[in-house]
């Protein structure tokens, strides 16, 4: 039997209809704004909970399959919860020719997961991206919005350790690790 998906079910992960409604109201434009709404939901919860997608579909008068299509088409959206720290390794062309694949592999080894996965303790999610626009300084790694440039495999362990140090200043222990602190708004 196919469930009636438009029916609001009991909340998952403590997400209430009201919270989602508020996000929709904030980002809905006269025309649509579905992508902005999904982005806001993702920003709030770190992923797109199925329950939220149902509410969006209903509110926006679009089929769930349509919303699901949008949610799976764009790389920015994830249907699975993400880890506390988000590690993004650039695999753009410039970073690739300067050795980015070895950086990803080293993260995979250190964290014991593959790119795109989250560690079982929900601490880290490892992602790859096609260019962050800092190509001159590749390979680039971004951890929780903090940029590392000209990364080499031996720095990987430090980068992981720094991610939960919480203390920004200690990050510069290595010459080539630079922080950009508040630089990038989310």
């Amino acid at each position, binding site marked *: 039997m196919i469930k009636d998906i438009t029916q609001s079910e009991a909340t998952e992960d403590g997400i209430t209809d009201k919270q989602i409604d508020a996000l929709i109201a904030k980002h809905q434009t006269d*025309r*649509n*704004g*579905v*992508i*902005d709404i*999904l*982005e806001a939901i993702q920003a709030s919860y770190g992923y797109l909970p199925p329950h939220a997608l149902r509410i969006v579909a209903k509110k926006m008068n679009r089929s769930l399959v*349509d919303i699901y*299509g*949008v949610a799976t*088409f*764009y*790389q*920015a*959206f994830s249907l699975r919860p993400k880890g506390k720290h988000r590690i993004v390794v650039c*695999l*753009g*062309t*410039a*970073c*690739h*020719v*300067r*050795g980015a694949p*070895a950086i990803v*592999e*080293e993260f995979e*080894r250190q964290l014991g997961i593959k790119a795109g996965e989250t560690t079982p303790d929900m601490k880290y999610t490892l992602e790859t*991206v*096609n*260019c*962050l*626009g*800092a*190509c*001159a*300084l*590749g390979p*680039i790694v971004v951890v929780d*919005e903090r*940029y*590392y*440039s000209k990364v*080499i*495999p*031996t720095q990987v362990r430090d980068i992981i350790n720094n991610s939960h140090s919480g203390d920004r200043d200690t990050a510069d222990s290595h010459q080539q690790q*630079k*922080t*950009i*602190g*508040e*630089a*990038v*708004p*989310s």
Partner: protein
Amino acid sequence: MVIPAGTCGQASGANDLIAAAEKEILLCGLDKNIRVRVTGCHGFCEMEPSVLIEPDNTFYPQVKPDDIPRLIKAVLDGKILEDLLLVSEEGKKYYHQNDLPFYQTQVRSILAAHEKIDPLSIANYIENDGYSAIAEVLENGAPEAILAEVKNSNLRGRGGAGFPTGKKWEMLANQSNGSGKYLICNADEGDPGAYMDRSVLEGNPHSIIEGMLLGAYATGATAGVIYVRKEYPLAIKHLELALTQAAEYGLLGDDILGKGFSFNLSLAKGAGAFVCGEETALIRSIEGKMGEPRQRPPFPITKGLYRKPTAINNVETWANIPIIIRQGAKKFTGVGTRNNSGTKIFSLVGKIKNTGLVEVPMGITLKEIIYGIGGGPSAKAKIKAVQTGGPSGGCIPTARFDLAIDYDSLVDAGSIMGSGGMIVMDEHTCMVDVAKYFMAFLKDESCGKCFTCRKGTQRMYELLEDISQGKGTLKHLELLKELAEVVKDTTMCGLGQTASNPVLSTLRYFRDEYLAHIEKQQCPAGVCKALITYSINENCTGCGMCVSVCSEEAISGLRKQRYKIDSDKCIKCGTCKGVCKFEAIEVS
């Protein structure tokens, strides 16, 4: 004191410099004597974090926060800190920015403004002649006059295809204006390795707004959208602020500058899909749908955003508009060549000494850019090729570096101009690996609508994967070539139609590398893991550096003696090679 702090500057520590400078100025009460201007990227990213001292344009590369206090003191004393200057390999010191070989052959009609402008301040843009073009036009100009000026400038779209902008605008102007027309700024910049659009958006966002205002006035468009990829958070931040400021100044919205002309401009964010740079896919994405391209015609110019007539132009195209209107088409066509006027910004990255953004007149040769401005290879290895045009482009070998670059010549060479990425590759770059890389990219980014694109890119990737693992045969090459032609001929949008370029161009110029993989099971560049082994040669001093970094405990031996790599344990990650100071680790 000018400190560039675009994403690249910040990634290399510009924020620490800014904080140090502001602190020093505050502590010493120098705010009347020296001012810090934080700007977007100037182009010479390799040297960041850098400092430029006006009015002499003294250039200090890779400055450390600790040097800031004495730098400020030197500025106030009218002195130059010789030890912080950039020094050439021959020991020549460069004092002024204009003396640097990196800047000498450039014609920076767009990028030079980034030095003068604080992107967070509309007042600063206006002080630098900003919005003067639109103000003048609203006062004295007719829409037809602007259209004529843009047409006469012969400006070609900087987004890749090089379509004449004036012609596009004329078509839009000729559409009836019953219920609105749209302008779109394509800031999706999906080509990996290209970042000139990011730099312009971050460094001079108001120039894009002014360009679109001029476009709206010329074509009768009533509203516009800037579509930015979400991987550019700083650009989004600067644009959002610029839009708010422009509205506050009466430069956007209804009755602009009290002249009865109205134009609304908004921002839409991408969500990470390369194909959304294609114009019909981009329109769908703005409409909140899946970003799948559709068949053209009808072209967006007749049926675009919300089914209204729409003109789409690239960021750099828009950035050129105020310049053309301010200086006139005649002066603009004085730069570049006959069919390719003006300048083009390239992102010069990869295995090159001076990485960064370079703005050059069209028609300059690859050699002048790569060896002149770029300073040649970054390491000992020789440069082998340059990749232009992103995933839709191709690799051009050194033998063809005399090529004068413009939209047409690059197509002849089997590549395309694309948006302006130039990724330099040296002898340690494997061309089979590069082709495989692009095919992996394209198979992931293909939206899947056309069967031949979806499956064709997948199959080409598998064939390349086989070759890179030494499992390829000559049959693989034939098949690759055939598939490449089929995909080219049978797909709907530009992604599929150009997807074969990376394969065809590497096959055309680097067939011997493919053959080495197939016939000799060798990867001459030492990249394809299945075909290489690591060993330690007699240069080894037994320092033990490699042992300490090897995660697999594959290196053994006694200290002060030559170490050995156990090839059964070695996972070929290359970490040891990266740390060895004696070139003792060999790949064969």
